[in-house]
């Protein structure tokens, strides 16, 4: 599969701890075009370790673009310049011999840098704990075919549910807004009949926790959609806004 190797200059963010001041460290590398960018980091780390130097801390897990663990910013693009691709699926054949890359962590107040390229995304979990579920207990489910759901609706819900929770939307947004992520979650449940009973409480609780966790507001630049490795649509944000307005109109009016 491989053609010949390419030479790249990599400027990689190093930061000892959340409090420490970070800086770029420069690496000149000869790289196989078939390697993924994380494999390039693996190789650099292997060499650093052999030399007794601290390897670059970065996170990744499935390396199939589905777990959402990995997340680097390459030349200003969360997950790199290739559309609809997670960092782990970014192969070096997408770069040219002689290119210079800047590799940084996701940057946002809500995503504290823990070390080098590792950030803390626990805010996402908190948002989901607030309402990202359907309330029912194991064992009480009716037959799977008891509720008919049109193929179109199921597909739409899945389009939203495909979100891998990586945080690229926050990293791409000039306001570090988490609206694409939250709206994908809200949409997934709001679209399905199973999620309807709690739709209003859900969107209110999730938005509340989102706001509490230092994410910014959406100003509709749509950078999130452009950088999302799963191509989650900003139409979800519009849907979440609708849900939120309806929730405002429909709840708390009877008391």
């Amino acid at each position, binding site marked *: 599969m491989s053609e010949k190797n390419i030479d790249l200059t990599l400027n990689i963010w190093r930061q000892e701890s959340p409090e420490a001041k970070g800086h770029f460290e420069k690496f000149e590398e000869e790289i196989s075009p*078939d390697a993924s960018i994380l494999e390039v980091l693996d190789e650099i780390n292997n060499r650093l370790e052999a030399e007794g130097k601290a390897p670059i801390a970065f996170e990744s897990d499935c390396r199939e673009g589905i*777990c959402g663990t990995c997340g680097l910013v390459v030349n200003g693009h969360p997950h790199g310049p290739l559309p609809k691709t997670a960092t782990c699926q970014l*192969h070096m054949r997408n770069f040219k011999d002689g290119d210079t890359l800047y590799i940084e962590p996701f940057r946002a107040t809500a995503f504290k840098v823990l070390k080098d390229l590792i950030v803390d*995304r626990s805010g996402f*979990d908190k948002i989901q704990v607030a309402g990202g579920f*359907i309330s029912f207990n194991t064992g009480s*489910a009716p037959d799977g075919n008891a509720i*008919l759901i049109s193929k179109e609706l199921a597909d739409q819900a899945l389009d939203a549910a495909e979100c891998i929770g990586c945080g690229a939307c926050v990293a791409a947004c000039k306001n570090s807004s988490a609206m694409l992520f939250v709206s994908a979650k809200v949409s997934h449940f709001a679209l399905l009949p199973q999620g309807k009973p709690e739709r209003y409480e859900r969107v209110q609780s999730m938005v509340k926790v989102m706001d509490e966790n230092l994410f910014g507001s959406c100003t509709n630049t749509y950078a999130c959609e452009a950088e999302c490795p799963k191509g989650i649509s900003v139409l979800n944000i519009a849907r979440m806004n609708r849900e939120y307005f309806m929730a405002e109109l429909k709840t708390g009016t009877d008391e």
Partner: protein
Amino acid sequence: MIKLDSKVPEGKLSEKWTNHKFNMKVINPANKRKFDIIVVGSGLAGASAAASLGELGYKVKVFSFHDSARRAHSIAAQGGINAAKNYQNDSDSVYRLFYDTIKGGDFRGREANTWRLAEISNNIIDQCVAQGVPFAREYGGTLANRSFGGAQVSRTFYARGETGQQLLLGAYSSMNRQVNLGNVEVFPRREFLDVVIVDGHARGIIVRNLVTGELEKYASQAVVLASGGYVNVYFLSTNAMNSNATAAWRAHKRGAAFANPCYTQIHPTCLPVHGEGQSKLVLMSEGLRNDGRIWVPKKAGDNRNPNEIPENERDYYLERKYPAFGNLVPRDVASRNAKYVCDEGKGVGGGKAVYLDFTDAFKRIGIDAVKDKYGNLFDMYANITGFDPYKVPMQIYPAPHYGMGGLWVDYELMSTIPGMFVLGEANFSDHGSNRLGASALMQGLSDGYFIIPYTMGNYLGTEKPEKVDVERSEFKEAQQNVEENINKLLSINGKQTVDSIHKRLGHLLIDKVGMSRNEKGLKEVINQIRDLREEFWTDLQVVGNAKSINQTLERAGRVADFLELGELMAIDALNRNESCGAHFREEYQTEEGEALRNDEEYKYVAAWEYKKEGEWELHKEDLEFENVKLATRSYK
């Protein structure tokens, strides 16, 4: 000294679970909140267990080494989940799913467990639909199915190529609801490093906080291990980078028997290796075999463009050898045959790959229909390899994927350490010597949603364990043990990196304890692994300290355990003088090259008790087959 008691209930197979559920102790709702339960792992099994136990009112603590519970590797399962719903009216039934699974596992699974799995399969689908899992639907609004390897019926439920993700998000959301309600507490970025045993029962764990480096002690009245599988022992596998055997292995060293470690599944549809720098192998869902046809050129060394090779010069070897099942033979059969054709020199793309061709499917159902079914997999393939599968056939090769072996558990999923339950891939239970596609998700969720909530009650109700304090000597001893291990790793100060040793271990294992094994190779590899382990402990370089994030240290601990597990895999494979399922011993095959079982002598589960480093004692759990006739597995 371990005594294996499978606790399989008496009675008719189809009534065992129902009767047993009635016979087990129950705890009254008000008392449940007095029990603390620790769950290690937050994948399908762990998250579903935490959710269900939380719903019942137990106080649950969940530990995960990921930054978020949602990242567990269950998320990467693509193809689907089986259930005996018979929505397709194609003669499916609980019995058929049970039989397919037992047969697929080459009659090395426990009948009662497998039956229960098939029985529960239907509840799982209902459960997941109610949670909002957006399964694929027909135009009329009913659930859609597809067929999968090892079955002649369409019983696989799916959500595009992301079924695992959707199911995990479902379990994760149910768990989050319990977090919201205060019944479950999640501890991310914590790595399990030891189990604490008090008076013979599991009563707590020691974890390392991966951010601060601190060792933390947690006490509970029962421990649930749902820490996943171990095939990352091969270095290159389809598992996630962080998947490891450490939790299971440390528990093993504390007295949990490890069963059938040599049953490792090599998945047939993975992307081929591109070079030494490769970090993992990427799986393409087996669902692809539904519409794709597998072939190699008839002539060895034929390196023409595949589209230029005429039909009569192609060998559709699976369709030729197994006309009844064709491309849908079980995974082990498909993998082994790929290896054989490549060994004959007919491999493509450098020799270690075969074609998976969709040309006929494009003609039959149209490109759009194929795109709808597998679009994301096609995109992934194009992205990784740089080739467009809509134009050129895909190249695939087998890769280690799943460990059927794992910690031995009884019918109630309890290990040989009382109070420690093992769920999901971490246990050995339901798949025998080979797992069929779309049944790992089924098992993880069945264990978590529908088995542990009952059996946990039985244990707690029978034992009525008291709360213990983390200041007890047992906790201190365990913590000290972990600390010593970490200090040892940090003080070797040698020259080799963790990955370089792991890679070498992987090469040894895939070569000699991979798709095809023999006595000579196994004997050799045992010594080679011992030597490598020696090298590891004398010449390893772990940079940094234990007081902050140190990923090298994390990996070093895991590889240390792999180096012991690898040896046991070889020992187990050497002990099993037969071929069954994924365990193929070259000495034991039919004239046609098919696996040859030896039911007389090896119809047992091999459960290994840890004695000391490099020394194990074998315990055998005899397998009774009262409901199926032991047959030679044939997919012809």
